[in-house]
């Protein structure tokens, strides 16, 4: 039997033990994906910017959370606009957005 590349994904899930119950937290966080998509207007689709606005894809989650909270608190020196955006998000949202970008391939 041959499976196509997308089939291979499903196959991998099975191989990793599909029989185990799937915890809700392990599922795709669609809300975080939607919130993070908002950032993509400046930081590139899924955070893949290649220019002066830095990429976010594959960055360490803890570092992202720290930076975003510093922006929000007005504690970062270089902030033309991010302090104003960061103030729009709760702790929970920052954590989940950071997790989303951290999980993207660089």
């Amino acid at each position, binding site marked *: 039997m041959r499976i196509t590349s997308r089939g291979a994904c499903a196959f991998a899930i099975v191989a990793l033990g599909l029989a185990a119950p799937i915890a809700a937290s*392990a599922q795709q966080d669609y809300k975080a994906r939607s919130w993070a998509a908002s950032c993509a207007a400046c930081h590139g689709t899924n955070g893949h910017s290649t220019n002066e606005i830095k990429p976010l894809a594959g960055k360490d989650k803890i570092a992202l959370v720290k930076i975003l909270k510093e922006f929000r608190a007005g504690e970062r020196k270089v902030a033309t606009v991010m302090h104003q955006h960061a103030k729009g998000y709760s702790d929970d949202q920052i954590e989940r957005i950071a997790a989303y970008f951290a999980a993207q391939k660089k």
Partner: protein
Amino acid sequence: MSMNRRQFVRALGAGAALGAAGTLAGCATTGGGGKRVVVIGGGFGGATAAKYIRMWAPDIAVTLVERGQKFVSCPFSNRVLAGSMTIDQLTTPYDGLARNHGVKVVHDEVVAIDPVKHEVRLAGGSTLGYDRLIVAPGMDFMYETIPGLTSASAREQIPHAWKAGPQTVALRRQIESMRDGGVVAVHIPKAPYRCPPGPYERACQIATYLKKAKPRSKILLLDANPDITSKKGLFMAAWKDLYPGMIEYRPNSELHDVDASTRTAKLVFGDVKADVLNVIPPQRAGNIARQAGLITANNRWCGVDYLTWESVAHKDVHVIGDATLSAPGMPKSGHMANQHGKIVADAVVALLTGRPVNDEPMIANTCYSWVSDREVVHVASVHAYDKAKKTMVTVKGAGGLSAKRNMKEAGFASAWAENIWADMLK
């Protein structure tokens, strides 16, 4: 034997596998197989929606209908007036959507929407069926409010230059061929209109050129509004510091007609004759939205449910971008339309694959304006859905303006343009 992922999952009889698929990097959560989405309009909203639906649900077939062969950005088009950018630099082809995301791009024009049969009819004669339709037609001008602009020749003589392309070039040519000491008059319609800071940025960009090439000339800003509608302090400072004596601002200058042959703006309080007259007419949702009965507010804009951007008039038809009735504090901007595109993409995928719609959408806006050929100012805002009010509201304490005009943000503005164009088209 060869099987695709869906068949494979089905073969396992494992509905749970679908739910788990998203947990592995690189395994897109799909579903929605056989479902069809049609998007009308390939601007900031429509192109983004088309791309993101395919990215998030590769099993959904997406057709984008767009009459232009290439996308031309309105943001930054005022820089063409200064001679700092060319139309080519604002232009991106549509082929990335097909190549990278499998969006079917059809260069045609929708002439009718049948919300009962779930079909759109194209000028070319064919018909496209849909499960969900996304209407992103931008705005069209209310020419009936300016009788003197009825003919095509009058619209050449008095360009709007508010949709980027030939009109932008026409206005640039007129300013280039004007005598030194001439008057360029720009008329601004009552809000809401596309791109609130745009007309004031335009004054800066025309002034950038005139200061160099025709320093005795004047710019007259005839604003139908009682005051500058966006970034007031920042624009006034730029006018005063960078172009002293060149820009005259006249509030409450409502236009009731023009005389194209003499380039005269007929205002409620008298006539103004100019060497170059740029009239930005009042606007409403794009013509196809009007024709399809999607306009529900003030005879101008399309009312939507802000969770799904589904029309309040027709089921399974969503409207996004400038055409929609803006929630309080939400400007009609390309950045905003990009954000609508993603919310509608997520909602449409949710609805077609049977998962709940996000009940806490967030969107943000940033408008960068060039006040010279090297300095930029911005206004930003963040908006969250309010469950009680059932609308988007601005998040208090977030957003704001540039402290002052600066060169650093010229770099960020250019980076923004590159990234948002890629975010919608590549």
